[in-house]
């Protein structure tokens, strides 16, 4: 972390960048927030720890409009999103000084709290330099502990790898965190009967409160105005009036980002109701990989996206029924 701060100070001092986009320490042990820093003094608040889960690439859309370069801290998975945004002309590569930051897996405070941990006072083991396998949590109700891996975000268990796809320089070490196949969950659902599938999604989506956090956090959902906010499509909806509306919203949202979604996992991270929204996006990714060849959005900035591409021999839609 100190290395990051030092480098940020240098880049600010020599005028390479006009500001730094990173995280600011929170007022609880686990709530750092994305923040801009414009001076060395402000950088006193800079933190980078295992609770810095937010994908900062989307902020670069606005930062690209500002005067001068922005030093932005991107984790390996965030760089896919950034590449995808370059491809879609939503960010300006020239306006970004990308520091690829190391990642040892990011923590999900909800997972810790779900283990019955309440009244948290401090958490030990969440610093980026820590090598601890266990988090020591001091609470009002006594000391608790939690295995680091058990507290990780879902996306870190199926990590795409700790390699940065785009960067100007790299700071900090990473540690491999992948311990599951990212399509296992999708395959589990695919194997269900239609009734079970429907019951599963109905139950999950019934929690949706249409807060739009998934959409607004999603770096692929970078539309200036979403079709669901626009009167033009006659699809403007605000609230969960009927269970159909959540389905419509989540299917269309997943469809709109199909082939563009890098599987960064922000949607699931930010959902206040803990809906595993990645299951929609990942289904499309799995289908695309299987039907049209492996494709990783954001791995580069030039390849043709699967939905703007075709081959004569593509599978027919009837394959859906035939797959069983």
């Amino acid at each position, binding site marked *: 972390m100190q290395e990051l701060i030092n480098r940020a100070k240098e880049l600010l001092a020599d005028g390479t960048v006009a500001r730094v986009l990173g995280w600011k320490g929170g007022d609880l042990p686990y709530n750092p927030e994305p923040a801009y820093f414009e001076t060395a003094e402000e950088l006193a608040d800079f933190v980078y720890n295992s609770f810095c889960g937010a994908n900062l690439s989307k902020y670069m859309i606005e930062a690209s409009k500002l005067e001068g370069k922005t030093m932005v801290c991107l984790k390996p998975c965030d760089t896919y999103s950034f590449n995808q945004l370059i491809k879609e002309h939503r960010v300006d590569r020239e306006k970004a000084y990308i520091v690829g930051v190391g990642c040892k897996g990011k923590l999900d405070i909800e997972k810790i709290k779900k283990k019955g941990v309440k009244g948290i006072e401090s958490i030990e083991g969440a610093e980026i330099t820590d090598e601890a396998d266990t988090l020591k949590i001091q609470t009002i109700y006594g000391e608790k502990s939690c295995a680091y891996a058990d507290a990780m975000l879902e996306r870190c268990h199926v990590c795409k790898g700790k390699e940065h796809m785009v960067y100007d320089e790299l700071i900090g070490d990473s540690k491999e965190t992948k311990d599951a196949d990212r399509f296992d969950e999708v395959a589990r659902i695919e194997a269900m009967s239609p009734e079970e599938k429907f019951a599963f999604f109905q139950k999950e989506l019934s929690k949706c409160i*249409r807060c*739009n956090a998934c959409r*607004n956090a999603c770096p692929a959902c970078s539309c200036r105005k979403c079709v669901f906010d626009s009167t033009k499509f006659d699809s403007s909806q605000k*609230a969960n009036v009927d269970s159909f509306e959540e389905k419509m919203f989540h299917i269309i949202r997943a469809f709109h980002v199909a082939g563009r979604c890098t599987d960064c996992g922000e949607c699931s991270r*930010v959902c206040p109701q803990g809906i595993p929204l990645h299951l929609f996006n990942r289904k499309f990714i799995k289908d695309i990989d299987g039907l049209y060849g492996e494709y990783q959005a954001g791995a580069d900035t030039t390849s043709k996206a699967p939905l703007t591409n075709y081959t004569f021999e593509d599978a027919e839609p009837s394959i859906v029924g035939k797959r069983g």
Partner: protein
Amino acid sequence: MYKIAKENLSALFRLIAETRELYLPVKTAGQTNYAAWSEDAEVDLDTLKTVKSAKDAFFPQSEGLYTVKKEGKKMSVEPEGLKEQDFVVFGMKACDVKGLEVLDNVFLSDPVDTFYAARREHGTVVAMACHEPEETCFCKVFGVDAAEPKSDVAVWTAGEDLYWKALSEKGEALTEAVKELFTDADEAAVEAEKEAIHKILEKLPYMNLSLEGWNGDALSEKFDSPIWEELYKPCLACGTCTFVCPTCQCYDIKDYSAGDTVSRYRCWDSCMYSDFTMMAHGNNRTSQMQRFRQRFMHKLVYYPANNDGMYSCVGCGRCVEKCPQALNIVKVIKAFQNQGGEQ
């Protein structure tokens, strides 16, 4: 004061449900929210904070207002009926109960919102003291006592029992209806529980948050502060804070066409949304900074200015827990505090 063994609670719920609708915290797919009780509902009284508040019971996220039916070129309008059925909301916390007061000020003052008023009239609140308050709680800051919920009925959990005390006529009526399941109890266990809660409250990091300077008089000073420009930046403009909040009361009115019938309904809206209060000419708040500022100015400045100093935040801490980017009202209040210190 009465008590009932926790293990008999399902009998209590069943009995309440015989004569009234019953809403209480139910766990669905891993998350606890208020929902209608049923035999197979997984009732969860251990989770301190439901994701959404109990606001839905009185001010549902979506609510029909009237329906227009078309036959040929003739149209008829059918207003939606008001709530007529008595219902019970079980398990609300003191902060959420205070939230109802905030809503009352809005919806029960002239012109009275008849839909809300009918629900308030038919609803009985059984509020529950917070057995284990958490680090995100700051109800005390707004004068709420987590150990002493003020509602129709107050309940406490202590040991293996749940203690029950009616505080209003409606509460008495409900008590009458279910008394058969209770045994008499003295207040000793409850007093001990209250003391324990108070002790914990003392330790919570947000409990001594200062609201100094937040009032109607500070309107222009706060409104014009440059701090907002810094604070809003991480905001994603989602509506999470609004929709989990027990006091946010803004709604939009929309139409839904099902062909020959069109239903007009209202649904919660969020001042964080870019189309909030969208009018023909556009929007009176054009930037996210303005929208962000609006939410906190409303809670901490405008509302108290119009309601004898009462804030429209109750310190439930849901926004603290749920904001995707870890922004919240506490950070806002602190930012202004720090700024004041520096000046």
